[in-house]
């Protein structure tokens, strides 16, 4: 009896040992983190399930939050040395994370074919490149847009503008609509930095220089003229006055004035069209490129977000396999659709075409228009962009619109304060 018992114990220990060791040999656990809405969380989790079914040896642990606390969380993780293997990254933050060495260069993995980028246009891939190396994979394309409500245009008797319309067209149309219907011609945050960026490109520069060490435009009149236009429109009541916008705070796409029937045009990111159309009960909005400056286009394709791999990951190959699955697998794409922007792979785009809703079709068409006419995607922002945005751009924007400062003074201050931050 006693001997049997001992035998049993030994066997038990052996079994335990085997159980412990055997999965460890092949089972890989990856951690992934992203930001987004509930809709994105659901879609992404479904794709992860699909992936785990196809690759039973890889287990994926997902973490996700909203945008506002995302980088606070990620930065804390980085400080604690427990970054996830795969991270969603934003264009604006990419430079800082690359410079600090947190991201793995992906060129080798692409060369080995673990990540397949054959069906992706070169300029789209290059958006994730810095200092000659590829650090992040673009997940979808977006562009700045004006959403236009065709019904309101019809009511005001204004024909829809041509694709390459100008700021003069825009002002004229906005004024007519305001005069005839008593609503805003265009609404909400027209002084958004993204509109200003387009404006700087149209003026032959960009917000920042290529190396991100100074402003990318020489003449302060570029800045001043932009805000002079906004002030003019604000004073005429064609766009909402800034204090109304400030009091409303940050509004989600669904609450914008255009969705409440109080405006005919609205600056937006193209992928937000879905949310806005839902708020309008499926009423079709049209997407237009931002007005041109006498024909010069400032719109560009912006990578909506990236996946990047932790430089210290133990499983670069497995992480890359997941990213490859995410961008190339047709089944995965059917779940994700265009929630992260228009998919980058031509093959995936083709496969999705017959499944698109009218709203998604509008987005896809719009992106191909930008591909045709748009300016090249500028380099990622300097690392301190967020600080500039919070402490310089927005306060000056408010001060101009509240008339505490003239656009010309603000232009000078903007340059001074931005340089102060960039030089620090």
């Amino acid at each position: 009896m006693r001997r049997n018992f001992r035998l049993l114990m030994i066997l038990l220990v052996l079994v335990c040992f085997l159980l412990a060791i055997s999965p460890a040999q092949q089972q890989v656990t990856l951690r992934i983190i992203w930001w987004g809405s509930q809709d994105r969380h659901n879609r992404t989790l479904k794709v992860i399930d699909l992936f785990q079914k196809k690759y039973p040896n890889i287990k994926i642990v997902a973490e996700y939050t909203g945008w506002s606390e995302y980088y606070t969380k990620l930065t804390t993780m980085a400080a604690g040395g427990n970054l996830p293997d795969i991270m969603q990254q934003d264009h604006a933050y990419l430079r800082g994370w690359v410079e600090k060495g947190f991201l793995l260069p992906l060129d080798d993995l692409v060369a080995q074919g673990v990540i397949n980028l054959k069906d992706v246009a070169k300029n789209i891939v290059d958006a994730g490149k810095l200092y000659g190396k590829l650090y992040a994979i673009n997940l979808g394309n977006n562009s700045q847009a004006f959403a236009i409500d065709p019904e309101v245009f019809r009511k005001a008797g204004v024909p829809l503008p041509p694709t390459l319309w100008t700021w003069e067209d825009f002002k004229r149309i906005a004024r007519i609509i305001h005069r005839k219907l008593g609503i805003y011609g265009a609404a909400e945050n027209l002084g958004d930095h993204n509109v200003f960026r387009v404006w700087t490109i149209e003026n032959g520069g960009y917000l920042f220089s290529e190396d991100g060490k100074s402003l990318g435009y020489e003449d302060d009149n570029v800045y001043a003229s932009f805000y002079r236009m906004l002030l003019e429109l604000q004073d005429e009541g064609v766009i909402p006055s800034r204090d109304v916008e400030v009091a409303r705070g940050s509004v989600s796409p669904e609450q914008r004035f255009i969705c409440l029937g109080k405006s005919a045009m609205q600056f937006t990111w193209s992928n937000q069209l879905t949310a806005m159309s839902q708020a309008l009960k499926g009423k079709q909005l049209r997407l237009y490129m931002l007005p041109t400056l006498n024909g010069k286009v400032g719109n560009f394709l912006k990578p909506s977000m990236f996946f990047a791999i932790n430089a210290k990951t133990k499983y670069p190959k497995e992480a890359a396999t997941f990213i490859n699955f995410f961008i190339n697998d047709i089944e995965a794409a059917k779940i994700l659709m265009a929630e992260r922007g228009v998919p980058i792979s031509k093959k995936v785009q083709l496969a999705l075409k017959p499944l698109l809703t009218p709203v998604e079709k509008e987005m896809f068409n719009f992106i191909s228009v930008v591909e045709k006419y748009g300016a090249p995607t500028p380099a990622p922002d300097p690392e301190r962009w967020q600080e500039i945005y919070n402490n310089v751009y927005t306060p000056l924007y408010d001060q101009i619109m509240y008339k505490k400062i003239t656009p010309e003074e603000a232009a000078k201050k903007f340059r001074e304060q931005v340089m102060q931050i960039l030089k620090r």
Partner: protein
Amino acid sequence: MKNISKKKKHDLLMGYLFVSPWLIGFIAFIIFPLVTSLYLSFTRYDILTPPRWIGLQNWIRMFTQDPRFWNATKATFKYVLFEVPLRLTFAFIVALIFSMKESKVLNLYRAIYYIPSLIGGSVAIAVVWRQIWGYDGIINALLSIFGIHGINWLGDTRTAIWTLILLAVWQFGSPMLIFLAALKQVPTELYEAATIDGASFWKRLTSITLPMITPVILFNLINQMIHGFMAFTQSYIITQGGPLDSTLFYAVYMYRKAFNDFEMGYASALAWFMLALVGLFTIIIFKTSNRWVYYEAEEGV
């Protein structure tokens, strides 16, 4: 002799051993972060790269190059200056009413009036407040009945901070309870004697009630002042610091510097400046207190 000291030593050791959980917590979670943040205030630190010593640069920048720092200081001062006296006055009046009569119903009311203090600091209330004072909010809807239209409470630099002060005054519960306890401590024979002598209600209030509770007023004043300087949620959620930084509370600015701009060093410097300011004001109030606070026991009847 040796025995005694040994016993003493043993007692001492046991004593420290028993308070050690608290002691360890105090050192690890209070002293250590405190000293670290003082060190960090002389560095540039973005969490991701190790802190770099830059001497007094953060401090110089704070006082000479940062207009938003002054905006934040101004807004916070304005808030504290109005919010604290208003809240204390309100709390005192309500406490006075409650202390005059004793009944079951009154106890219920006491609980009800305390509720705003329990929930007032919450995000939910801040969101509701935002709706109430919003452009299409309840207040404007009510005003429109009287023909007053479209006051932009949260978007106007003159009115925005008052919506926050009003919210704070509404949360008068905890100073009210403390006042109430103090009012009950005032000996009734003083009132009886005064009434017999023909003193009016007003006379009794200013000559008996107020002097008798001055120690509690002092306590409430300091408590509420410190509280006021640390206010965060209202500004963060309701006005987001705007318009034009007119409601940018110091704590919000500090938080943004630390967690939006990732300038931990600069944020630490901001924190220490606030600590120094609050300390200074507390000392000033304490120093002046022997002129207006009356301690019964010291008189030694």
